[in-house]
């Protein structure tokens, strides 16, 4: 079981993510973030709980809604926000943007914007870990909507057949873009109810409780490392903002929103911290540190330069260039 001090660290990570997402939202509305953003406020416990259960050299693959995973794996708010704000100092040099946050050096192998596409990649990373005998696991995080696309099926079957150390973690926030997952899915639990089709464990966890997430991922990752194969974890959660950009999410019933906002990951963690005897001051100090980090990050990102246009024609190939002909 987690100690108060350990949990306080996780809490602070979640607080940083929450504030980074709020900053991204505000920056988008003020025109400083172009394109689109898919904010993960509300999903913090999944990223932070899972990361806490993983090794530093494990592999994570995420979606366009992936800020929380990048941050939980060690990307700084500054490099994330700089990326969103099209700065040369961004995580991907402003070539990726909000949907493609990647920090390979921290095992965050990318955010992919084609629903479901990264599940087979995670299978491949797990295969690679097994071939190299490293004991690493790979984790693919994906939304409820991804459970109905073909790549999901192919990835789970292959992972099961090859008994690979890969975890499939579904962040079930009840909605795809503007349509409820329940309206377009043949089973009640879009992920967990599919696990038997691949002969693998399928579990459901409260994705807003960072401790429960950590425990579940820890257990399934140990199992995977021990050679017992993949597992599917469905983490229930809810997004605080709309799907993307300025979506007001009017399609969600008010009672539902209210109910979920009362089941907030940060609140839950605070309750647990209290139970573990962590003082309100200590929690408040963590909150303040988080606020300060994100504020500084916003300032630094704002001050950073735009990328050199010449960068557009680099890094297609491993030699750093983009020449397709002589």
């Amino acid at each position, binding site marked *: 079981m987690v100690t108060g001090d350990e949990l306080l660290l996780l809490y602070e990570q979640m607080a940083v993510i929450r504030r980074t997402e709020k900053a991204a939202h505000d920056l988008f509305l003020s025109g400083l973030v*172009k394109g689109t953003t898919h904010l993960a406020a509300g999903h913090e416990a999944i990223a932070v709980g899972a990361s806490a259960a993983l090794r530093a050299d494990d592999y994570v693959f995420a979606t366009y809604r992936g800020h929380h995973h990048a941050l939980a794996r060690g990307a700084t708010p500054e490099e994330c926000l700089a990326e969103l704000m099209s700065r040369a100092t961004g995580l991907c040099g402003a070539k990726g*943007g909000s949907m493609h946050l990647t920090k390979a050096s921290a095992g965050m192998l990318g955010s992919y914007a084609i629903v479901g596409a990264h599940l087979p990649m995670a299978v491949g990373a797990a295969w690679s870990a097994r071939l190299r005998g490293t004991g690493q696991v790979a984790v693919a995080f994906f939304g409820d909507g991804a459970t109905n696309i073909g790549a999901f099926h192919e990835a789970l079957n292959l992972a099961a057949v090859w008994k690979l150390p890969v975890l499939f973690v579904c962040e079930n926030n009840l909605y795809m873009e503007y349509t409820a997952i329940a309206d377009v899915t043949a089973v009640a639990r879009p992920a967990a109810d599919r696990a038997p089709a691949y002969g693998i464990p399928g579990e459901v966890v409260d994705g807003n409780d960072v401790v429960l997430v950590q425990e579940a991922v820890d257990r399934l990752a140990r199992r995977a490392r021990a050679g017992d194969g993949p597992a599917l974890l469905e983490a229930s959660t809810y997004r605080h903002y709309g799907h993307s950009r300025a979506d007001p999410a009017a399609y969600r019933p008010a009672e539902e929103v209210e109910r979920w906002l009362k089941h907030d990951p940060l609140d839950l963690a605070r309750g647990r911290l209290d139970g573990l005897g962590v003082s309100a001051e200590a929690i408040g100090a963590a909150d303040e540190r988080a606020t300060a980090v994100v504020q500084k990050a916003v300032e630094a990102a704002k001050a950073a330069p735009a990328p050199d246009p010449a960068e557009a024609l680099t890094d*297609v190939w491993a030699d750093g260039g983009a020449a397709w002909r002589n």
Partner: protein
Amino acid sequence: MAELTATQEAFGQRQITYREAVAEGIAREMRRDPAVVCLGEDIGAAGGVFKTTAGLFEEFGPGRVWDTPISEQAIVGAAMGAAMTGMRPVAEIMFSDFLACCWDYLANEIPKVRYMTGGQVTVPLVVRTANGGGLGFGAQHSQATENWAFTVPGLKIAAPSTPADVVGMMASAIRSDDPVVFFEHKGLFASKGPPAPPDHVVELGKAAVVREGADITLVALASMVPVALAAAERLAAEGIDAEVVDLRCLIPLDVSTVLASLAKTSRLTIVEENPYQGGWGATLVSVVADEGFGLLDAPVRRVAGECVPLPFADALEERVIPTVDKVMTAVRTLTAY
């Protein structure tokens, strides 16, 4: 353009957006023909993520406007099966990049089944999709993928540049007994133009000369049409009189209009958003270099997307997608040849 629109509006001519024209074009056909049904992700009550199906669910109800799971293969595959059995489905693939997720249907099934059954079946469907870049959506949501479809015999390919053409070409596409991939340009959704007259039908495969000129022919498609027109306006100030052809469709390809223009101008520049390597303009150039060789007084140049993925930042994206400046540079070089 902006001023022109303002003037027209001042004189009371109603303008509609390209986005509205999509929904209008579909609605007109749904009113006309009960066999027309729509399917796609979030196209129902939500009206589509680009609001290009706004109002359809309200007018036609859930029996004709169907929300789907995120299952691009099932969407297009089901549209195919329905088209083979008496319906005229209009399937939406949200971003044209996602055509890759159901490419088997576009490349191997839909365009081939009529041929390989010796003409036993037809597939009267439309796959609509939001195409193109310039909006900072990054590498996987910004591509101009009309060149993918262009590699596959058996697909008709429409890519209108104005609201009226959207309506008129949507009519032709939905009425077509052949499969049509209908590229709606994301960068044009907010643009405005005169509404389509009642019963407006624009035949597929007919290019439009949208600006007459004597010195050089600019051939463009979709969002590159306003770019070419803007370049032509600015070149006029330099004394270069460019003719601009809006190709409107890639298949059928209106070679005649291009060659006729070339007969007048003797010089050709193609303006295309898709990458230079494998872009549709290359095929047009190859036809011209064969059949129109004698007409050419100068090299032919393609102003196309750079051969890189689409980057996120504005500063980078502008370096990749053709701009008015790039077109002007190309034209100046050729007219000086």
